[in-house]
């Protein structure tokens, strides 16, 4: 089979970073599927991209598809023709499906029956004929989050397409899209190698690009990292390159040069969070830190310009960074002139949620809830007061100038303002940290006070949204209730004394006091159901078996620490004594299948036979042990107590016929099984374990 390499380059005006990264992942799938569907064998598909191009380089594409002959079997001859020998509906339908006339029908034998059949021959098709339409389909088929039209054409792409290179070996493949015809000319770097550059063949594409001052995505990322590392060595600094900004920076250049600029010493007095954000988010520059972790005056920028003009480019960037930092400093200094209480009053003008009221009202609820969290956690009065105070001030910074400008520093700025206003350090820190955890793996607040405020904020939102009948749906979660629930779970995991159901009830009560009407019991049930769902997901994501997670969930436990430690203990017990646990689960299932709850759990001890008595005594012992173990949160001991029932129950089922003909005997034995199931109830649903094993 002869093969050639294939190149498709879609040249466009500057593509935005995130959609470009998504398209880099989508392109090989789309192209690979199209080649496969056309029957063109091919090798590896490599994606190459820069802001102005998205390209696929495919190695070893077959020059033609394989010719094929296939026989398709249709209905039995008897059903294909009627008594007069005319084709039936079945036969006509079969022919239509295969695109042939009735005359083309043959007869084949299958399992001794005669069937009609057709032979379909596909001649080999030349790749040169297939690749054009395939490429056109791929260009039109990329799924951009937002696409656009341009000029007088109606085709859509992420930004205007300006050129197309499509080569099969050394030959140009004819591709047309939005009035553009393919050729072999790619475009070089805007400044360093403007204009067209001929690509002789796919294999020379990367060299042509490099000659035209264009590096592929990965090569740019590597070059930027190398140059940053060099600068770090020279300057004795550590550069912070958060992934999201770094990804953008890589997609904003074709030929990167890393440069260092500086800003005024005086900006080091402004909270470094807004300084860093101004540089990272607004200017796509990276902050640099001294070895001791303090912010330095140096910032790192990545230029796409001609390095002959580095000095002017640095100077220009320094001027812009100065203006940005001036703004940040101005906002901070202006904010310091206002008292947090004044901001708090402005929150009465800011809607939290139309039906749930203003942010001022939310703050009032948070104060009470945060205090309650601290109280339930067993904290002293001073700590409870701190939690209330921190919740009181937590949202004030939302109307500060700095947070209006640097939204993602909400909380953090509030912490600075609280500190400046002479609030207790614990309170200031709690305000700063109360949005945590903001994403998976984020740090939790460092203090109980911070955790109490964080829980109150998130739980208040969840309970409110459930109360107005707007729980999160698959596609809609504008108040980030799912993330909030995960946050509450992570936080409460560290506060095992705080009962989630109790908190939900307090929170809903606060909404009721505010005048919101809803069915409190129903909503409370829905909220704990929601938390149970999140807990189950989290436990499964930790690697727990779905049946173990279900077994714990069925007991109705929603307190995060208890739920997760129970799952872990159950998993551990099953890990150590798999056979015993499985066997116990099977016995439990058998017992509950037979059991008749109407018979109760009272058993006349005197009437019991030997095996029955053994089970009865073991069950009594297990009941006591389980109760004691659960009372002191020794869940593994509870499991061990249940495990002790395995011998007696197995022996019982072996030695005793439960469904005795004597009704009295039968009922006694059934009641005994009811009793046997009893100690399991608060531990785990062993039936769920048996179903899977």
């Amino acid at each position, binding site marked *: 089979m002869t093969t050639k390499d294939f190149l498709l380059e879609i040249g466009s*005006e*500057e593509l*935005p*970073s995130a959609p470009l990264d998504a398209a880099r992942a989508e392109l090989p799938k789309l192209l690979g599927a199209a080649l496969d569907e056309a029957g063109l064998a091919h090798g590896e598909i490599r994606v190459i991209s820069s*802001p102005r191009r998205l390209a696929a380089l495919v190695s070893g594409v077959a020059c033609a598809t394989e010719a094929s002959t296939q026989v398709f079997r249709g209905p039995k001859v008897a059903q294909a023709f009627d008594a007069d020998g005319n084709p039936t509906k079945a036969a006509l339908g079969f022919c239509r499906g295969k695109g042939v006339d009735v005359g083309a029908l043959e007869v084949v034998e299958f399992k001794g029956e005669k069937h009609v059949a057709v032979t379909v021959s596909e001649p080999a098709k030349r790749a040169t004929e297939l690749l054009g339409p395939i490429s056109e389909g791929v260009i039109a088929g990329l799924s951009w989050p*937002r696409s*656009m*039209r*341009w*000029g*007088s054409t*109606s085709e859509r792409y*992420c*930004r*205007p397409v*300006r050129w197309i290179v499509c080569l099969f070996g050394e030959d140009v493949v004819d591709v047309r899209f939005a009035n553009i015809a393919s050729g072999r000319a790619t475009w070089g770097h*805007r*400044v360093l190698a403007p204009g067209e550059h001929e690509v002789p063949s796919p294999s020379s594409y990367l060299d042509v690009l490099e000659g035209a001052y264009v590096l592929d995505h990965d090569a740019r990322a590597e070059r930027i990292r190398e140059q940053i590392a060099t600068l770090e060595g020279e300057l004795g600094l550590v550069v912070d390159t958060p992934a999201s900004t770094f990804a953008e920076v890589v997609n*904003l*250049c074709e030929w990167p040069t890393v440069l260092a600029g500086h800003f005024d010493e005086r900006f080091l007095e402004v909270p470094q969070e807004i300084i860093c954000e101004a540089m990272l988010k607004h*200017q*796509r*520059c990276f902050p640099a830190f001294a070895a001791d972790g303090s912010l330095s005056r140096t910032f790192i*920028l990545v*230029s*796409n*310009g*001609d390095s002959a*003009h580095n000095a*002017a*480019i640095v*100077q*220009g*960037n320094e*001027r*812009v*960074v*100065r*203006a940005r930092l*001036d*703004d940040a400093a*101005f906002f901070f200094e202006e904010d310091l002139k206002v008292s947090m209480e004044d901001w708090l009053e402005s929150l009465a*003008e*800011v*809607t939290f949620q*139309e039906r749930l009221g203003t942010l001022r009202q939310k703050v009032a609820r948070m104060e009470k809830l945060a205090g309650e969290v601290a109280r339930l956690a067993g904290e002293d009065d001073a700590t409870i007061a701190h939690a209330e105070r921190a919740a009181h001030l937590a949202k004030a910074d939302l109307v500060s100038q700095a947070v209006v400008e640097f939204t993602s520093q909400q909380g953090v700025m509030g912490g600075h303002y609280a500190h400046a206003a002479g609030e207790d350090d614990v309170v200031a820190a709690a305000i700063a940290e109360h949005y945590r955890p903001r994403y998976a793996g984020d740090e939790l607040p460092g203090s109980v006070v911070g955790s109490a405020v964080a829980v109150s904020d998130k739980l208040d939102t969840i309970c409110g949204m459930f109360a107005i009948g707007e729980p999160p749906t698959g596609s809609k979660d504008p108040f980030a209730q799912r993330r909030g629930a995960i946050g509450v779970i992570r936080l409460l995991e560290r506060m095992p004394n705080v009962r989630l159901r109790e908190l939900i009830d307090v929170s809903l009560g606060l909404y009721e006091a505010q005048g919101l009407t809803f069915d409190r019991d129903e909503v409370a049930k829905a909220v704990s159901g929601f938390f149970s769902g999140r807990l189950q997901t989290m436990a499964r994501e930790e690697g727990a078996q779905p049946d173990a997670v279900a077994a714990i969930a069925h007991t109705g436990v929603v307190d995060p620490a208890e739920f997760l430690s129970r799952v872990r203990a159950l998993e551990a017990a099953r890990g150590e004594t798999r056979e015993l646990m499985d066997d116990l689960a099977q016995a439990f299932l058998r017992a509950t299948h037979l059991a008749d709850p109407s018979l109760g759990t009272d058993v006349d001890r005197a009437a019991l036979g030997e095996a029955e008595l053994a089970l009865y005594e073991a069950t009594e012992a297990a009941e006591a042990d389980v109760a004691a173990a659960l009372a002191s949160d020794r869940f593994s001991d509870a499991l061990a107590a249940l495990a002790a029932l395995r011998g007696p129950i197995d022996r019982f089922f072996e030695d005793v016929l439960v469904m005795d003909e004597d009704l009295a005997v039968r009922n006694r034995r059934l009641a005994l099984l009811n009793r046997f199931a009893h100690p399991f109830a608060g531990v785990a649903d062993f039936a769920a374990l048996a179903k899977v094993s």
Partner: protein
Amino acid sequence: MVKAQAPTFQEMIFALQRYWAAQGCAVMQPVDTEVGAGTFHTATTLRSLGPKPWAACYAQPCRRPTDGRYGENPNRLQHYYQFQVLMKPSPVNAQELYLGSLAEIGLDATAHDVRFVEDDWESPTLGAWGLGWEVWIDGMEVTQFTYFQQVGGIECAPVPVEITYGLERLAMYAQDVDSCFDVVWCRDPEGHELTYGDVFHENEREFSTYNFEVADVAALRRHFDDYELQCQACLDRELPLVAYDCALKCSHAFNLLDARGALSQTERMNYILRVRSVAKAACVAWMAASDTKAEVAK
């Protein structure tokens, strides 16, 4: 230090007008009603609609009451200038034409780091959106570059490209000054300089005071209501151009109310929706009128 060779503010406007005139743009004068951006000029909003080719450029004074800083901030103004270019259909070399224009105002693109950074544009009050970029020179945002997809809720076909230069920023950069008030507006034959501050500093102080402290909220609400009614009356009489002018008046009254901090969140949203519906209605009426004219011409 002002670079000797850097163009003055007025020379930049002259240069851009000449450059874009040479590309086939009709040089317009600004619209004489208060607007928040050059986009609101009929030469952009209305001419973006419909099938007829159109190319125009103009300098537009813009008013954004909330951005006022009493003349105390070197970068923020409540009244400033945009240089606006609109070409429909967008030419294939729109970006190259733009880069060529920078050289005319003393910013050689090859000597700087010029980037097209994603910035999708949306005007809730105009019912308009488009995709494009903000253009950075050495990290400074100097231009908005947008392919309009929809204006007044109507699909744009063919698609216009809008290029909006922030003149003060470009002048600050070209002239290497840190405050917009130090930008040289013009120089007489003896070399005496008139600065942007000489022309507009007092203007910033007075209008900031008016916008934030003096503007009569009740009167502004009345103005809004009155112009909304006028707009409807003009639509009834099939006078879409006047109706559109009334929509602009509504928009400015809203901006002033906003600057006065007179609007709650919900109220603010309502006002935006009201401006949008009058602006949209005017656009739709203008389209209908030009369709009728096209029919008559046939």
